[in-house]
């Protein structure tokens, strides 16, 4: 087990290096682009040369790359041209929102997908199955921004005034304020990493409200999460449903399942005790893979629902041509995704003894 985990970690290192190289390369593709971005379109060649020299952009590429690696290792991802804030600071402010959204979206997709997949496989070729399969086909075909805008219209305009109305924008109803945990718990003297961690947690509004037992605020924050989570979770939901269904159908066709039936077990117990445990492994893998599409989709979802997360920072960066923000975030998200995949692979080894031996 330890060897497997160690080898898996070692294999991650060259990929990590490749990610850094690629993002470094992308941020340097157009010579002078940074100069024109900062000094304006009409900067002269001499001005640009001076700028490049000052920024170290005229040094050999390997030296620049080494310098870049050093900066990334110390957490320096550059500075936003628009707001002059370090990208790292911006990231720490924005990440809690995205984590919250991705959590609810994945929760919705996993629970919904596994349940629908099981029902669909259990009642194969029934009306429920046909509708589920067709729904999953449509689910993977709806662009996030189309679904987001349509649901926003349905729940905020058409259902306005009914109990089903949901807010289409923001994280809290205007007027509702949420207090950071440090303030709420009287820990304002706290400094350094513990304080940073507490502030980070505070920015996950639903978690903050739960921890400080503010139920009304929790309900409000949660209501604001429902539409975005459904929108972001729809494609993963469709994919998880499909995989659960086909994986369970494969298993239910095996001989030992017939044996289980022959022993006199109820259908329900056959599926639960004999079918599911063997069908769930591909589902775990696919859930891990969905994180990537969630992070990409967060850019669109947060833009539509006006949520100040990492994704919205990327789309704001695009609109303002503040590309250091975009590239810094892409780097962090790619590294995060790589680490998450590592965790999924390792958890796979815990679930399936065969993996450890290969």
């Amino acid at each position, binding site marked *: 087990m330890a060897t497997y985990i160690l080898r898996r970690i070692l294999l991650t290192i060259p*990929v990590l290096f490749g*990610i850094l190289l690629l993002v470094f390369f992308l941020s340097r593709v157009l010579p002078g682009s940074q100069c024109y971005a900062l000094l304006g379109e009409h900067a002269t060649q001499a001005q640009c040369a001076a700028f490049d020299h000052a920024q170290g952009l005229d040094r050999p590429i390997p030296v620049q790359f080494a310098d870049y690696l050093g900066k990334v290792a110390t957490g320096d991802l550059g500075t936003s041209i628009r707001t002059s804030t370090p990208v790292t600071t911006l990231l720490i402010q924005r990440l809690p929102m995205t984590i919250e959204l991705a959590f609810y979206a994945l929760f919705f997709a996993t629970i919904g997908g596994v349940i629908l997949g099981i029902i669909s496989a259990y009642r194969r070729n029934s009306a429920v199955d046909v509708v589920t399969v067709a729904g999953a086909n449509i689910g993977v075909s709806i*662009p996030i921004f189309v679904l987001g805008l349509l649901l926003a219209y349905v729940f905020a305009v058409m259902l306005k005034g009914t109990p089903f109305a949901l807010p289409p924008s923001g994280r809290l109803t205007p007027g509702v304020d949420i207090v950071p945990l440090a303030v709420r718990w009287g820990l304002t003297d706290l400094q350094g990493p513990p304080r940073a961690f507490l502030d980070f947690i505070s920015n996950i509004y639903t978690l903050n409200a739960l921890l400080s037992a503010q139920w009304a605020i929790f309900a409000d924050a949660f209501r604001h999460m429902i539409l975005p989570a459904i929108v972001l979770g729809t494609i993963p939901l469709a994919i998880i449903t499909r995989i659960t269904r086909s994986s369970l159908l494969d298993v239910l066709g095996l001989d030992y399942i017939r044996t289980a039936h022959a022993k006199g077990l109820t259908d329900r117990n056959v599926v639960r005790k004999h079918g599911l445990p063997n069908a769930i492994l591909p589902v775990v893998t696919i859930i891990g893979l969905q994180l990537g*599409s969630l992070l990409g989709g967060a850019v*669109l979802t947060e833009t539509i629902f006006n949520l100040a997360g990492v994704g919205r920072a990327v789309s704001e960066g*695009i609109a303002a041509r503040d590309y250091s923000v975009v590239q810094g975030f*892409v780097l962090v998200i790619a590294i995060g995704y*790589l680490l998450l995949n590592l965790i999924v692979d390792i958890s796979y080894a815990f679930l399936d003894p065969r993996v450890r031996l290969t």
Partner: protein
Amino acid sequence: MTSSTVRANEALGEPIAAPVAARRSGGLWRDTLRNILRQRNAVVGLILLGFLFLTAIFADVIAPFPPDQVLIGVEQGVKKSSPPCIHLLGCPAEQPQHIFGTDSNVRDEFSRVVYGSRVSLFVGFATVGVAILIGTLIGLVAGYVGGWTDNVLMRLMDILLVFPALLLAIAIVTALGASLINAQLAIAIVAIPIYARVMRASVLSVRESDYLTASRALGESSVGLLFRRILPNATTPLIVAGTLGIAGAVLDVAALSFLGLGAQPPLAEWGSMIALESGRLFTAPHLIFFPGIALVLTVFGFNLLGDGIRDALDPRLNR
């Protein structure tokens, strides 16, 4: 020898395989087509896509106006962002007829959606075409040469795969500059690993086979082996991956356009049309709805066709 085998088969009460198979088979391609048409998914997909292709080809005939014509001064009583008006369905006759309404620049939304089909089809095929071309080449070389080359090429593909596709595409377009061509290029680059892997897998599956050794013994060159003997084996999985890939490419390029990184106004592209009107969602939802539905149906069509072809070609499901 042959006659004795036939007799043996008859004695065993088994059908004589050869003549029966010869009567049933209509050649590789016709059989494949028949299998595909037996799949409900594929048929629905083909109908949707046929409809889309006809719309794209006859856009000039179908659309009442050019896609970027501003109708102020062209038509009496035309208003901006007006909802759909169809005279047959009781829309007052003094109001000009626009079956999908008009957009915020007083253009006919129906014409724009119709012309948008051309953009989306071009985007889908061109993007996937480039990705398949480069991807198969990488996969062929990696699988055929093997060893060190294979390792380096496939690790490079792994790096591309680590990025969430849309985010890598965003990073590439921000480096290259926002335009439809760059968006397509970015989506193509992101998709390369898929085709490289498919191609490499098929090369590996036939590399040690006897028929390749035979071809080599007959004096076939390496290039001939690659393109005449190995590549045809990979056509099937490539067609499946490519059809599904078009669906993904249309989605992703529309998403980039929505973010302002792809098609630029006034081009009638569904993603950028939605982006332009997204601020007027609550007052003019039809401007989101129609291009949105067009996008969904296009992607749905390619997804269904891809699934259908895969099921049709999967021998396990043919029985």
